[in-house]
């Protein structure tokens, strides 16, 4: 990874050498004839020079254990002009070949993969914040390495503008669809074919019975979701209802519809806490604030979310505020040593398990989807990097699970590398980018726990205090439950650690200590709801499969769904909620082969209860204590038992849908489940503004 530091500002990355000339020359020499005599010289070797598709092998296999490399940051700037933009970034989506380190087969390997990725630079072209290379102005510095997009760092109240430009060249990637062409109907489900081993004949694998819009499709079309933000979902806010097509492949719109496009600008203000004015409607005061914390952004075009995140299209979105100021006062210097760890499992292909292929997918059970390859759990694109600390030092680690599949549902804890007892002390301070209350900071299940669990899309902030002596410790991980019989291969069982912590040098001076429960930052008032408020409405959402409980003989039986309905972009699969309503929802999981990480955009929620039937009886049912933990994504535990007598995993949550009327989505954050239909639209209705419901069609 060290080659990142050698890239010069604005240096153009040379295209990988083409294999075309080599093959053509070798062939001509071997045959002694010109193949141009057969099919014409212009056809044989006339491809123009340009970026090459993936070669067969990597140039080198990067070693594990390299020093931790932070992702470059785009940092806000202060301004006295309240209408000025505080962070202005140009983000380009590209395709290219990356060399991904994996473990499997023969051990440590490198594999070339054709991937989509973000390239970011300041709109004004100024340098990024990244200490080892202050002059760096573009991220990634080396596009041949996998990893997340750049980190954005802003502050509560800031205006953020991200200009997204889709420059994916489909010619550098496998074809998985009819792509976005200039046809009246530009989208169609991806196609996957298998091979009969005995005859070489064709076996259709996908899409079987899955249909638009809920199938894997439109892999080169994209948009941006700002996960964890409490901003408007409409217009140029956190709007995931738009399609940004690859340039050169923008289809004409249907008759009477506005033109399609290959560029889009998200431009929104992070709201200040109450009683600040609502940035969308200044006559109204905010009822809730934006939680300052560890949030993230990622692609969110329905049908291609899983593949694009598997490719690596995600990044950290850090929003700072009073919580961070208070921590800095308690532990001076904390900001300087802070680490942002974006966890990814990089791959280039979504693999659908059929009921009969492989045979481990049991008939009558939902179909699972896996990433192809052997995606390792990477941090900022690195395999098992080393983080150095001084003895006794405390650092803040912001950890983001930016993966997309079930096998990344892992529990993390430190284990000594040589001495099992050599471990740092950790203290959890936030979950999903929302600070926890002092009571929870002092809770054995949260702040005091020495292990933590992250489902896809979860974030956690921890304080890590290195032991007082020198040594090494591993941040290890293990599946929360044993791998399900119909699940993906659990490659995470090989060398299962995320980072190596190396404690060296002299003890930290002056000594650092954790906040006490007494001086830990209290929850701001807008995170302390009046818990006596009446619940306006209760709802139960069943995360099951298409046409549940019927449909066993249907070809797409097992297709992920909510309430038996696959997302169809209509009111048939939507929740309509009144603005400012306080509601309690029960989320049930009917699958025994997978969790379903429930995520809802715009408004976080409080967690009241969790029931995990796969736990021993004494720990199956957790009733949360007040003040509640806030989350924006929570794993609904898998069910157990036979289909006709399921013991359901469930979660009970409470949310108030305040500040921003508009349309957004809720969905499972195992993202192929979402792409294939486990999603619903949410419309927050303010009848003072418009007739409700008024759901738009976006496909």
């Amino acid at each position, binding site marked *: 990874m060290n080659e990142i530091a050698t890239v010069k500002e604005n240096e153009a990355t040379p295209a990988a050498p083409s294999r075309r000339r080599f093959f053509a020359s070798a062939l001509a020499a071997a045959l002694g004839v010109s193949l141009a005599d057969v099919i014409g010289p212009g056809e044989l070797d006339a491809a123009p020079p340009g970026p090459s598709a993936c070669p067969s092998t990597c140039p080198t296999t990067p070693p594990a254990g390299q020093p931790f490399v932070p992702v470059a940051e785009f940092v806000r700037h202060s301004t006295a002009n309240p209408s000025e933009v505080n962070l202005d970034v140009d983000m380009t989506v590209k395709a290219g070949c990356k060399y991904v380190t994996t473990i499997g087969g023969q051990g440590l390997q490198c594999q070339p993969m054709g991937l989509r990725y973000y390239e970011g630079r300041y709109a004004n072209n100024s340098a990024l914040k990244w200490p080892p290379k202050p002059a760096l102005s573009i991220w990634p510095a080396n596009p041949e390495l996998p990893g997340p997009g750049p980190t954005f760092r802003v502050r509560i109240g800031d205006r953020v503008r991200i200009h997204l430009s889709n420059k994916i060249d489909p010619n550098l990637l496998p074809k998985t669809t*009819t*792509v976005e062409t200039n046809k009246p109907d530009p989208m169609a489900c991806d196609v996957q074919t298998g091979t009969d081993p005995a005859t070489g004949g064709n076996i259709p694998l996908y899409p079987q019975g899955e249909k638009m819009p809920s199938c894997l499709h439109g892999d080169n079309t994209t948009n941006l979701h700002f996960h964890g933000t409490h901003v408007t979902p409409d217009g140029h806010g956190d709007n995931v209802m738009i399609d940004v097509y690859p340039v050169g492949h923008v289809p004409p719109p249907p008759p009477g519809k506005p033109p399609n496009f290959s560029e889009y600008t998200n431009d929104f203000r992070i709201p200040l806490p109450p009683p600040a004015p609502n940035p969308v409607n200044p006559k109204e005061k905010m009822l809730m604030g934006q939680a300052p914390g560890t949030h993230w952004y990622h692609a969110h075009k329905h049908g291609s979310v899983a593949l694009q995140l598997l490719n690596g299209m995600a990044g950290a979105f850090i929003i700072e505020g009073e919580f961070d100021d208070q921590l800095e006062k308690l532990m001076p210097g904390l900001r300087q040593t802070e680490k942002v760890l974006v966890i990814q499992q990089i791959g280039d292909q979504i693999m659908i398990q059929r009921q009969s292929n492989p045979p481990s997918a049991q008939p009558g059970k939902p179909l699972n989807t896996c990433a192809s390859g052997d995606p390792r759990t990477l941090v900022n694109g690195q395999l098992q990097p080393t983080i150095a600390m001084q003895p006794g030092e405390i650092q803040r680690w912001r950890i983001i699970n930016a993966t997309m599949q079930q096998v990344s549902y892992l529990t993390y804890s430190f284990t000594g590398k040589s001495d099992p007892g050599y471990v740092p002390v950790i203290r959890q301070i936030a979950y999903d980018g929302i600070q926890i209350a002092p009571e929870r900071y002092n809770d054995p299940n949260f702040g005091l726990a020495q292990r933590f669990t992250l489902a896809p899309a979860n974030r956690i902030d921890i304080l890590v205090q290195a032991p007082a002596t020198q040594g090494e410790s591993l941040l290890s991980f293990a599946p929360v439950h044993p791998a399900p019989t119909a699940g993906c291969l659990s490659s995470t069982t090989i060398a299962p650690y995320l980072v190596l912590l190396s404690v060296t040098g002299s003890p930290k001076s002056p000594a650092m200590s954790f906040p006490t429960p007494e001086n830990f930052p209290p929850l701001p008032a807008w995170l302390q709801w009046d818990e006596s408020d009446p619940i306006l409405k209760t709802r139960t959402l069943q995360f099951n499969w298409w046409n549940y409980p019927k449909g066993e003989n249907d070809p797409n039986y097992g297709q992920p769904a909510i309430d038996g309905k696959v997302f169809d972009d209509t009111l048939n699969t939507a929740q309509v909620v009144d603005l400012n309503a306080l509601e309690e929802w029960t989320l049930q999981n009917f699958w025994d082969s997978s969790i379903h990480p429930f995520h809802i955009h715009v408004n976080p929620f409080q967690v009241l209860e969790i029931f995990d039937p796969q736990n021993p009886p004494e720990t199956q049912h957790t009733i949360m204590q007040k003040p509640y933990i806030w989350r924006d994504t929570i794993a609904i535990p898998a069910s157990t038992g036979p289909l006709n007598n399921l013991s359901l995993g469930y979660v009970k949550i409470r949310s108030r849908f305040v500040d921003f009327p508009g349309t957004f989505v809720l969905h499972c954050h195992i993202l192929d489940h979402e792409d294939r239909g486990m999603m619903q639209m949410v419309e927050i209705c303010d009848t003072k503004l418009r007739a409700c419901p008024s759901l738009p069609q976006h496909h």
Partner: protein
Amino acid sequence: MGKPKKGGYPPPQGSTRYIHIVGGQIEDKTIAWGDWVVWMNEDRAKYTLVVLEVNGASVPASVWATLTAVGTPDANSSPRQFYWPGAPPKDPYVYTYGMQDPPNSKGVLTVQIVVPPDAESV
């Protein structure tokens, strides 16, 4: 990293393997059961790839991929999986396939339990 257990690491989940067609020639390739193949046409000619033989025996000519000219949306194929249900055979399977139309080049695709290191990484 730790040492691999006796017998080596378990085989990886299927990976995508890229096969390039350049100057009318199909690159020979060795892959593992479970892998996917993507053919990438770097020529301006259009090609249709059909299977011809399995382990030396002729088979019906199923179409594996239809590739349009480089620079067009269908120049690369959809991924095609080579999967062996259950425990794969010890001996490799050798597929001979080729172009349906001139220049009628042939390629050899070998599928086996694991890909030797020199075939998948340097």
